[in-house]
């Protein structure tokens, strides 16, 4: 990585709405040119953070710089250099999708017509339909095309693929990879770990208005553990001695059923070992964000702060 100026720099951000503290001392750093995953469960403060970065909301305290500017006082100038896709796109009922794309792009300062046409085709969007006739997924596409057809250097995407079908999700991923190759910086918020995993160079995890973890994905290897629940003919022994195996639990000793978590790179070794005991059934699933939250930060939820459940990160 070259000597990069941070595209987004946030420190000690606080924002409350009445009695709820949406942001509680949030710190966030996004380097220029990277795709930064912004992960958190619903209501963690992702949208609030992005709206502060856009100058739509005013932080109670703390500092935020976006592309070297103050997002509240310098909002308009800043907006010429970024594009935003909200999580819940609302369109004007009497305007067509094409008109909405042009409107948003022109107000930002121009559009790349070639790219506009290309994106409309790839996302299979009908730009002649009126706003009220679009489904949620199609409204989302309108905002995505408007954002990506621009020459903005920073993309703020707030759960942009909510409502898109899996096929379009793939198109979206391709488009983001291209945007990154073109040198754009992307902040991609999501509550689905797998989506961010495919795209992000670095990830920040937000919970209750604070960043609880930030780093590259390999640094967060332990976050991508697969959970395996297995029933074997003979009791499986020696699993806990394997590298990368955590949280081994015996569910039903008589039936030979156990559950454990295994780091992404060590699944092969664990499954080989299991075959020695005769696998009767095997269920595996990647960790959901909510599970991660519960497993790694569940202790913070308890106000006593004493009931940690063996945070044995490798």
């Amino acid at each position, binding site marked *: 990585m070259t000597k990069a100026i941070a595209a987004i720099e946030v420190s000690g951000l606080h924002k409350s709405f009445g009695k709820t503290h949406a942001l509680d001392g949030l710190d966030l750093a996004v380097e220029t040119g990277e795709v930064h995953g912004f992960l958190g469960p619903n209501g963690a403060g992702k949208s609030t953070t992005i709206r502060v970065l856009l100058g739509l*909301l005013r932080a109670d305290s703390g500092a935020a710089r976006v592309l070297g500017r103050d997002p509240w006082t310098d909002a308009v100038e800043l907006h010429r250099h970024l594009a935003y896709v909200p999580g819940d796109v*609302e369109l004007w009922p009497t305007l067509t999708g094409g*008109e909405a794309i*042009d*409107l948003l792009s022109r107000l930002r300062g121009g559009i790349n017509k070639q790219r506009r046409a290309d994106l409309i085709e790839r996302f299979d969007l009908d730009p002649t339909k009126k706003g009220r006739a679009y489904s949620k997924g199609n409204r989302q596409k309108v905002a995505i095309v408007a954002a990506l057809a621009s020459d903005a250097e920073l993309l703020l995407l707030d759960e942009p693929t909510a409502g898109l079908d899996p096929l379009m999700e793939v198109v979206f991923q391709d488009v983001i990879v291209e945007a990154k190759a073109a040198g754009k910086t992307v902040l991609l918020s999501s509550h689905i770990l797998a989506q961010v995993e495919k795209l992000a160079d670095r990830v920040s995890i937000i919970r209750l208005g604070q960043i609880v973890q930030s780093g590259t994905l390999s640094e967060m290897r332990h976050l991508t553990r697969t959970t395996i629940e297995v029933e074997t003919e003979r009791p499986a022994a020696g699993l806990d001695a394997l590298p990368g195996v955590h949280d081994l639990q015996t569910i039903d000793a008589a039936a030979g059923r156990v559950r454990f978590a295994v780091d992404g790179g060590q699944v092969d070794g664990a499954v080989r070992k299991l075959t020695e005991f005769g696998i009767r059934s095997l269920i595996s699933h990647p960790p959901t964000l909510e599970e991660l939250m519960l497993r790694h930060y569940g202790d913070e939820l308890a106000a006593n702060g004493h009931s940690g459940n063996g945070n044995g990160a490798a």
Partner: protein
Amino acid sequence: MTTATKAPAPAAPVTSGNTLAGTRTLIRFNLRRDRVRLPVWILALFLGTISTANNYKQLYADPEDRANVVNTMDSPAGLAMSGPRHYLTDYNFGSMLGHQMLGFMAVLVGLMSVLIITRHTRAEEETNRAELVRSTVVGRHAHLAAALSVAVIANLVLALLLAVGLAGAGIDGIDGAGSLLYGLDHAAVGIVFAAVAAITVQMTAHARGASGMALAVIGLTYVLRAAGDTGSNGALSWLSPIGWVQRTYPYVDNRWWPLLLCLALAAACAAAGFVLSTRRDVGAGLRAEKLGSPVASDALGTPLGFALRLHRGTLVAFAAGLFLMGAMYGSILGDADDMLKDIDQIQEALDRIGGSSIAESFASMVMVVITVVAAVYVVMAALRPRSEETAGRAEPLLATGLSRARWVGSHLAVAMGGGTLVLLAAGLGFGISGAASTGDGGLFLKLVGAALAYAPALWVTVGVAVVLFGWFPRASAFAWIVPVYAFLVGYLGQILQFPDWMNNLSPFGHVPQLPAADMSWTPMLLLTLVAAGLVWLGLEGFRRRDLETK
């Protein structure tokens, strides 16, 4: 699985092909949803009629007064605004009610009925609620049948209330049989328009479009009867259901058979609605959704061009409406002298306004009504940024290179410019037809000027709305107080004689009452300055606050 203990669930009492299954439940459900709305509609229409009848008794106590009204009404303009000439042969309070109120009330009852139908059919489909209901044991025709039933119930309740209320009001010339017919006239025409809406809701996939089409039919039938009643033979009136009920001549001839025409038309339209509904899918219209331009025109790329696009429909509708309203008032301006000089209360009010002739004083009074309607437009337009904000459509716009001040400013520019334009349209209509009916060409410019004089007061109204939007966004709707108050003080106050300070609270109270009064520039300038100050204050507030997001 042979369990003798549990009897098979009794089959629902639905024979195959029962397309009306569930209708009764839906009727109860619809009535429950409308438990506030419908009583308010019905009571408003009922009380409006009763108070009008009582007003007649007070305003036209002398037979001489009534003879004067006959003279005024016996002109093309008078007949176009009321009803057929036959009522004029014996102009007592009853025939007065039938002549002047029935056509106007038919439009309102039609509006109520159309809204009932669209609300319970197309609006339900548009929001996908109908889909959920239709997935249960509900027949294909149940929604429409239930909506029509509710419309019939509402119209019959209104008819009954009118019949009993009017018969019991103890007004000369308003008897029991006439009142029953008068009430049933309302029900008949209301049911016809409900059935018309049963067709239009099949045509388009959007409730607003369906209501719009049905309202266009109401407008057309009104125009047909107006044209027929002013002409010599009245044949055109026989093409209009409003014309039919007017030709039952309640309190005059008590002719019942035109009601049968209404019933037959309503039955035919409703049947057509049911048939058409089987030719389309749930949620879809008969007419395919119109496609639009895939790219934006150049004008759309500027904030002002975009705001104009959003306001276009409302602005054009208000300008056209106020032009017609002005033209209607203008057409009776020539007869104002004869009509009003013998009515003491109005005469007193006119004296207070001053002016060189009754026509000019009357024109000043009309201007107040015109201005209130223009103020309604202005508040709607000035509150548009608020509705865009709460709908979540402001957020993507304000994340572009568009500043908050320019965004709100573009809507305010349309509100202020549009408000002025709407006044101009009213002034033109009033001026053209007023000058024609009085034969005084000099009146044209006077009336246009009198209308435009209210523009600064409208700008203040915009300012009030912006201040609320900027500082107390959740209280934005309080901006509606301005036109409501202006109406109470400006219109009723002239007759009821409110104290001066009440008049001065309204921005419209400071406008010189042209053409009767003399022009004075100081209040105009002050109002403009106040408007500018309020707009600045509102923009400052909006610049400082959080955008409300979903």
